[in-house]
C-alpha cells in the first residue's frame, strides 16, 4: 500500500492546482464583499457590511426569483424534450438510428456558446425563421416577439442544456433491468402502463440528476440571457456583470455572486436530499 502512494499522488497534482486557484478566487470574492465601494474608482475602501444590506431590495429578489424560474423552466422543458430522444437512443433496434441520434444529440456540445446564441437570434428574431414560417403558414399576421423575452431565453437555454440532459437520461435508461418491464407486461400492463408505472419510476434517479445538473448549470447562464434577453431579461449573472463591469461596483458584484452561489448550492442540497431518499428506496434488487 505505502509503496503505491507516490504513484497516485501524481494524478492528484492537476486537481489540487485547480482547487487552489479556485479557492483563491473564491476567497477574493468573499474578501471584496466586505470592502467598501469607492464610486468612480476601481480601488476599494475599508471593511463594511453595507454591501450586504444593499441586497435587501425588491429588484434583487426579483432577479433571484427570475433566475430561479428560468432555470426551473429550462430544466423542465429540457427534460421533457430529452426523454423521448434518450429513450429512442437507447432502445432503437437499428444501429444506424442510434448513431444518428447520438450525433444529433452531442454535436451541439461542440459549437461555441456565442455562435449558437447568435444562430438563435437569427431564428427567433422578428424576421427570423420561426416568425417567417408562422406567417407563411397563416398562423399569425404580424411577427410575435420572441427575441428579448423570457420565452426566447428559455428556448435557447433548453437547447443549450439538452445534450447533457440526453446523456444523463440515456445512461439511466440503459441501466434499467428490462425484465422489470417484461414482468409488468406479463402481468397484464399495457405498453402505456408499463412506461408510466415502471420505466419512468425506474429512471427517476436519472431524471432527478439530469434536472438538478441542468438547473444548477442554468443558474449561472450568462451569454444566452445577455444576448437573447438583450437587457430585458436579467438573470443573476447579468446583474453581476452590470454591477461589476458597468458600474464598476466590484464589492456589490461580489455580494451578488455569493448570493447566487448560496442559492444554487442551497437548491442543489435540497434536490440532493430528495434524490438520496429516492435512491435509498430503489436500492438494489
Amino acid at each position, binding site marked *: 500500500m505505502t509503496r503505491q502512494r507516490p504513484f497516485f499522488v501524481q494524478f492528484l497534482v492537476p486537481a489540487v492546482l485547480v482547487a487552489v486557484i479556485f479557492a483563491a478566487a473564491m476567497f477574493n470574492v468573499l474578501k471584496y464583499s466586505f470592502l467598501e465601494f469607492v464610486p468612480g474608482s476601481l480601488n476599494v475602501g475599508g471593511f463594511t457590511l453595507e454591501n450586504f444590506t444593499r441586497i435587501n431590495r425588491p429588484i434583487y429578489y426579483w432577479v433571484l426569483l427570475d433566475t430561479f424560474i428560468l432555470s426551473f423552466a429550462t430544466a423542465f422543458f429540457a427534460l421533457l424534450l430529452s426523454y423521448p430522444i434518450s429513450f429512442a437512443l437507447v432502445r432503437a433496434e437499428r444501429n444506424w438510428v442510434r448513431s444518428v441520434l447520438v450525433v444529433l444529440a452531442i454535436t451541439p456540445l461542440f459549437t461555441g456558446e456565442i455562435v449558437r446564441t447568435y444562430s438563435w437570434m437569427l431564428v427567433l428574431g422578428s424576421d427570423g425563421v420561426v416568425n417567417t414560417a408562422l406567417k407563411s403558414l397563416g398562423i399569425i399576421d404580424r411577427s410575435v416577439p420572441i427575441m428579448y423575452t423570457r420565452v426566447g431565453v428559455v428556448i435557447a437555454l433548453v437547447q443549450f442544456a439538452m445534450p447533457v440532459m440526453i446523456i444523463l437520461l440515456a445512461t439511466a435508461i440503459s441501466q434499467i433491468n428490462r425484465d422489470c418491464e417484461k414482468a409488468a*407486461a*406479463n*402481468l397484464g400492463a399495457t405498453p402505456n*402502463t408499463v412506461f408510466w408505472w415502471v420505466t419512468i419510476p*425506474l429512471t427517476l434517479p436519472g431524471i432527478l440528476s439530469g434536472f438538478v445538473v441542468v438547473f444548477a448549470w442554468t443558474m449561472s447562464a450568462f451569454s444566452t440571457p445577455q444576448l437573447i434577453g438583450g437587457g430585458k431579461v436579467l438573470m443573476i449573472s447579468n446583474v453581476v456583470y452590470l454591477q461589476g463591469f458597468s458600474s464598476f461596483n466590484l464589492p456589490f458584484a461580489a455580494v451578488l455572486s455569493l448570493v447566487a452561489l448560496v442559492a444554487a448550492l442551497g437548491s442543489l442540497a435540497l434536490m440532493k436530499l430528495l434524490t438520496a431518499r429516492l435512491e435509498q428506496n430503489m436500492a438494489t*434488487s
Partner: protein
Amino acid sequence: MMHQKMTAITALEHSVEIKAVSKTFGSFHAVNNVSLPIRTGEFVTLLGPSGCGKTTLLNMVAGFIDPSAGAIHIGGVDVTDVPVHLRDTGMVFQSYALFPHMNVFDNVAFGLRQRKFSKSEVTHKVMQTIEMMKLSGMEGRRISQLSGGQQQRVALARAIAIQPKVLLLDEPLSALDKSLRAQMQVELIEMHRNTGLTTIFVTHDQGEALSLSDRIVVMNRGQIQQVAEPIDLYRNPANGFVASFIGEINALPAAIYQASDREISLAIGNIRMTAPRRAEWQFGQGEMVQAFVRPEHIRIATSADAGCNVVTGEVLTHIYQGSHTITRLRVDGLGPIEMRLPGGDVVGRVPVGMPTQIAFDLSQVILLADKSS
C-alpha cells in the same frame, strides 16, 4: 361467469400447446421445430444445457419473442399473434424482476390491479397469496429489505396471484445457495399442489428436474431430445445425449456378441458381459452399440458374483460425499469407470492404486445403437 370460464378451461385436456415452433436468429436455429402439448395442471420441465433454447421457447409462450414458424395455443386459443399483456401467463424471471419502487404488497397486487379487481378483492387475493408463500407480515417491506429467498417468494407470489393460465419459471432457483434451493424446491412442489397451476419450469440442473417434474422435456441445440416422466427418463434415455445428461453414467462402446431370447451378451473390448434380454432390443449379432451403466450399478465383486460380469480395475480416486462415495477406476480395455457406493467404507477398504475386482449389474443396462459406426 368467472366460475363457468374456469371449469371450461380445466375441462380442456391441454392448457398449452406448442405446435411445430421454430425460432431463428439470422441463420442460427435457437429453437428448431418443437412440438409439445402440456396437460392442464401439469408440471413440465424444460431441461437442457445452457444455450439450448429453453429461455427462447419460454419467451415465445409468454409472447416476448415471436416464433419464426409454428403456433402457440393457450387455453385452447391460438395466441401466436396475441400481445404479451393479453396472454394471461405468469412469468418468474431469473433476475426476479421485482419492482424496486414498490413494496411487497404492491408488487403482488400489480397484476390484479391491471385486471381491474375491486380494492377489497385485490387486498383479499394479495393477502391470501402472501400467506401461501409464507410472506405474512412483510407486505410493507421494500424489495431491497428482503433476502434472496424472500425475493424469490415474492416473485412467485406476484406471478400466481393472477391465477394465470400457465406459470412460466425461468431458472428461478439458480441464484439461490444450495440449502435455500432445496427448501425452495419443496415450496415449489407445495405451491403447485395448492394452486394446481399448469407450470413450465426451465432449468439446466437435472437433479432439480428429476425431483420437481411430472414430465421432463430434454432439449439440446434447439430440439427436443426426449419427453418422459422422471423415472422413465432416468431408466430409458432415448439417446446418448439424454443418457449422459441425466445423472452420471458410464458409456462403454460394445458389440453384440450373441443374442438369445433370454440373454444378450456383449463384447466390450476383450471383456464379455451378459445382460438379461429386453423386448425392445432389436440388435443383430455383431452390431455396434453403446452400453450405458450407472455408477450405482457397479459394486465391489464378492464370491457370490462367481466371476459373472466381473472385471479388474485400479482405483484412481475416491470422492467422498458423505452419504456415498464416487470411486474412479481404470479398467484395461474399458477406460475410466465411475462406481458409486453408499457410505465411505470403500475409501478404507480399497486404497488408491490397488487392483480390485468390480461387478457390473447389467439388469438395467441401457443399450443404444452406435450411430458413429
